């Protein structure tokens, strides 16, 4: 948006009249039609579009659910059963919403690890990346509060355990928790306010998404080589190339989504959540939704209440510092032979933590969680800073074009040092 001027020229007299008053068509044209997209993007770059689709899907299904749902502790569980049994297609809307949350997280995790692999968090995209971390935190808060709404056993005990995390704060912890609950335990006031916030937060996410896309359109997209667009030959226009590819990816993702909704709609849920909330009995084995499991494993790995809570929140907050912890000048892991191995170890550790989070906190599971937790933090605090100094990256291609088409014979090669980017120091 900033570097390339709009090529948009309104065709009709009305178009010109309107554009001179609200230049929105020009904005759309420069952002989503003429916008230059690196020609070598893979399908990993379609997850942004998939995420936008999932956000819209959650909002639309959620607005309809809210028409039939009752946010009252005495009626919430019944009203969800009413949605499932009586409301026309209520089962479909609810299953789309409940599984949609999981699909949203599958997409966001792929999107995040894509960004870790290709170094998209590095200069000049730090703000863009941090906005992404904020979106992720808002998504977690939204999904957590949504899961409380059906007011089943998992809803109730999940809410109890997670809100109690704040009781670990010294001195004021207990007061904060009473303010979160609006009482002395999780109860009707808690459900009411969670419903209000569950409705609000997705629209805040939508706002941050707009900032995220805005920040993206300043430096433009990263790409598998990590080197920037240097000439028109490195890029293709957003429309039709990215538009059609994104739509295709969204449709494929919809098929995947539909498989869960129509064949295994309760696979990712917990049977205990079909038992109404009972404050006198905790289910024998409480686990959060799958997308929280790695963080839950970190919480339980630390045998101290406050320490566990700090470790869990740090595990996410440390992402914010990644652009500065990674000292390598090379963005894409494709050109970082050593880091590539550490990257996959890190992915394996995250998956393992997720699995450990689903196991009971006993015996060797605890020890394994502790080892993985130490490694998780070591990845950020030791591997990322040190590798930048000791690793010898592979030679980078001269241009995106060259990486796709091979070195052009007879063409003017890039002079040495042309890869240097003055704006991405540090």
């Amino acid at each position, binding site marked *: 948006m900033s570097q390339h001027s709009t090529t948009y020229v309104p065709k009709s007299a009305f178009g010109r009249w309107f554009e001179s008053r609200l230049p929105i068509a020009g904005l759309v044209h420069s952002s989503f039609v003429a916008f230059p997209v690196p020609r070598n993007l893979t399908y990993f770059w379609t997850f942004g579009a998939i995420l936008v689709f999932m956000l819209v899907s959650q909002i639309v299904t959620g607005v309809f659910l809210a028409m039939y749902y009752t946010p009252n502790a005495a009626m919430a569980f019944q009203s969800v059963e009413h949605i499932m049994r009586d409301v026309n297609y209520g089962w479909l809307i609810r299953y789309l919403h409940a599984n949609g949350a999981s699909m949203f997280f599958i997409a966001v995790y792929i999107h995040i690890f894509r960004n870790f692999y290709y170094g998209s968090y590095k200069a000049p995209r730090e703000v863009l990346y941090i906005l992404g971390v904020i979106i992720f935190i808002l998504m977690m808060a939204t999904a957590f509060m949504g899961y409380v709404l059906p007011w089943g056993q998992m809803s109730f*005990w999940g809410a*109890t*355990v*997670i*809100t*109690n*995390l704040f*009781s670990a704060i010294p001195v004021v912890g207990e007061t904060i928790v*009473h*303010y*979160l*609950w*609006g*009482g*002395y*335990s999780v*109860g009707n*006031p808690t459900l009411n*306010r969670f419903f209000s916030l569950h409705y609000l937060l997705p629209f805040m996410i939508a706002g941050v998404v707009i900032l995220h896309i805005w920040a993206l359109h300043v430096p433009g997209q990263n790409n598998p080589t990590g080197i920037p667009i240097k000439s028109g030959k490195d890029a293709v226009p957003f429309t039709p190339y990215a538009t059609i590819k994104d739509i295709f990816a969204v449709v494929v993702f919809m098929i995947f989504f539909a498989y869960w909704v129509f064949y295994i709609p309760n696979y990712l849920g917990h049977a205990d959540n079909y038992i109404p909330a009972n*404050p*006198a*009995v*905790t289910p*024998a*084995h*409480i686990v959060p939704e799958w997308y929280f499991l790695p963080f839950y494993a970190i919480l*339980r790995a*630390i*045998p*101290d*209440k*406050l320490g*566990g809570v700090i470790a869990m929140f740090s595990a996410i907050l440390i992402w914010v510092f990644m652009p500065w912890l990674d000292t390598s000048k090379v963005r894409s892991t494709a050109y970082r032979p050593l880091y590539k191995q550490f990257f996959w170890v890190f992915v394996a550790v995250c998956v393992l933590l997720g699995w450990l989070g689903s196991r*009971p*906190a*006993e015996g060797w599971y605890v020890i394994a969680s502790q080892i993985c937790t130490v490694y998780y933090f070591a990845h950020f605090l030791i591997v990322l800073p040190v590798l930048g100094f000791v690793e010898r990256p592979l030679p980078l291609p001269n241009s995106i074009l060259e990486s796709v088409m091979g070195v052009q014979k007879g063409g003017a090669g890039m002079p040495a040092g042309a890869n240097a980017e003055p704006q991405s120091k540090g």
Partner: protein
Amino acid sequence: MAETTTHVAEPTRRDFLYIATGAAAAVGGATLVWPFIQSLAPDAATKAAGAPVEVDLTPIAEGQIVKIFWRGNLIFIRHRSAQEIKAAQDVNVASLRDPQADSERVKNGKDQWLVVYGNCTHLGCVPLGNAGEYNGWFCPCHGSVFDTSGRVRGGPAPINLPIPPYSFVSDTKLIIGQEATA
């Protein structure tokens, strides 16, 4: 600010007005936030629901744990056996994470009645009775262990199960939510 209004380096009357206006706006804004934050606190009805409750102890057999609610909180009333009382008393208090003698956790002469809050002091799950290494409680959520006095003996829970305010009206009747005045 000073440069744009005047060339004297000394603060002017206008600077003072700017700062005073800004300060008034900040105080006003903060004051307006207060009622909204306060509205989140437990409301009057929730507090009023904390009226004391009476519990008849006669049907509670030795070894039994009864669950009741007061102020929305779960409370265990445990009728301890002689063996459980002895186990609770024969402990090196100094070795505990949250050191407290059993005698400080029951009413004088009522050793058989243990009254404690029923939510784990870790993250609030309901521990299972007559379970765990000390046969007191075991919390399935993250593995906290409590003894027959409700004191934490293992796992991530930082403190003992707290004691709610209560008193004996008679030998067989408890009132929870009210300490004896005498």
